[in-house]
């Protein structure tokens, strides 16, 4: 196995039991604790990959089966908002990485700033998502809630689409498959947004703790591990954006 190093330590030192207050008693050294919690976070992210994996599988199948419906439906998504959201999230990943750096360099002020920026950018992302979702709701593009295929069977009735894409009308049965696109849209971005909400709540908690100096005394495992989670959420969006928004924007 690749990880063949064994954690060794001085039994004598263990006897004296001098360890930082944040070291749990079942660990022999703080290094072991940090290794373990870091590895645990990575394993948790593996479960997240597989969880989203089911949705990606569904997406790939139905996009392949109902390509015209997916193209037409994706035109309902605004590239401006989607692109802006991508910018916000990528930047928030940058600020999060800078936050970890600040904690490593024990710069408390910088850490609080970076975490706050990440927080704000995350909120911005969610705000834009709300705008997008509301638009879908207004146009009856939410599966199960009086879903309407009118924009697709009669694109002329939808002025924005008409102007930008001049989509041809879809035949009725292909038009019904746009509902599958929107189910995937809401399921995937919704699941993603749920993970963002959880992340933002934890960020709020971390900002409070950071201001109290909790992470700039050398014990930054929490910030590091949260950073992994945040970057993972970013990666999911990196794939969602082209798959949902950029299927085909050419005439």
């Amino acid at each position: 196995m690749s990880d063949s190093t064994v954690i060794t330590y001085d039994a004598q030192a263990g006897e004296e039991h001098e360890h930082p207050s944040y070291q749990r008693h079942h660990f022999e050294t703080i290094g072991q604790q940090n290794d373990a919690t870091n590895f645990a976070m990575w394993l948790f992210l593996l479960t997240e990959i597989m969880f989203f994996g089911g949705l990606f599988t569904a997406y790939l199948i139905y996009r392949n089966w109902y390509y015209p419906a997916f193209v037409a439906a994706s035109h309902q998504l605004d590239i401006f908002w989607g692109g802006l959201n991508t910018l916000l999230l990528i930047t928030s990943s940058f600020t999060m990485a800078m936050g970890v750096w600040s904690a490593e360099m024990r710069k408390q002020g910088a850490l609080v700033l970076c975490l706050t920026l990440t927080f704000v950018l995350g909120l911005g992302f969610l705000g834009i998502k709300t705008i997008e979702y509301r638009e879908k709701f207004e146009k009856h593009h939410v599966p199960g809630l009086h879903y309407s295929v009118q924009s697709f069977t009669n694109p002329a009735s939808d002025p924005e689409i008409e102007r930008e894409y001049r989509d041809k009308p879809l035949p009725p049965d292909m038009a019904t498959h746009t509902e599958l696109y929107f189910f995937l849209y809401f399921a995937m971005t919704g699941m993603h947004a749920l993970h963002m909400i959880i992340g933002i709540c934890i960020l709020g908690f971390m900002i409070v703790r950071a201001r109290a100096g909790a992470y700039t005394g050398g014990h930054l495992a929490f910030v590091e591990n949260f950073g992994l989670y945040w970057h993972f959420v970013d990666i999911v969006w990196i794939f969602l954006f082209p798959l949902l928004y950029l299927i085909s924007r050419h005439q």
Partner: protein
Amino acid sequence: MSEHSEHEHHIVSPKTYLAILTALLAGTALTIAASYVDMGPLNPIIALAIACTKAVLVILFFMHVKYSTKLTKLTVGAGVFTFLILVGMTLADYFTRAWGRW
């Protein structure tokens, strides 16, 4: 012999982070632009390729995997591998249905 934290004190510099951020933003612009150009079957391939590159950059640098232990790299690999098995083998069923019976 006391083992230190996995991150072995390799602190990634803000300059690196800035470079990666720039690359990610450029990739985003590129992928948006590419979707407006008709390249037939190449469109989804290019979009996925750009997305994968961006993801790899985030994983290697923002998530420090480039400077992490072999175990971390193996873990990431295992996740990606299993994901590909799920997607690949399921899609293989769907794609081969059209081939009919023997």
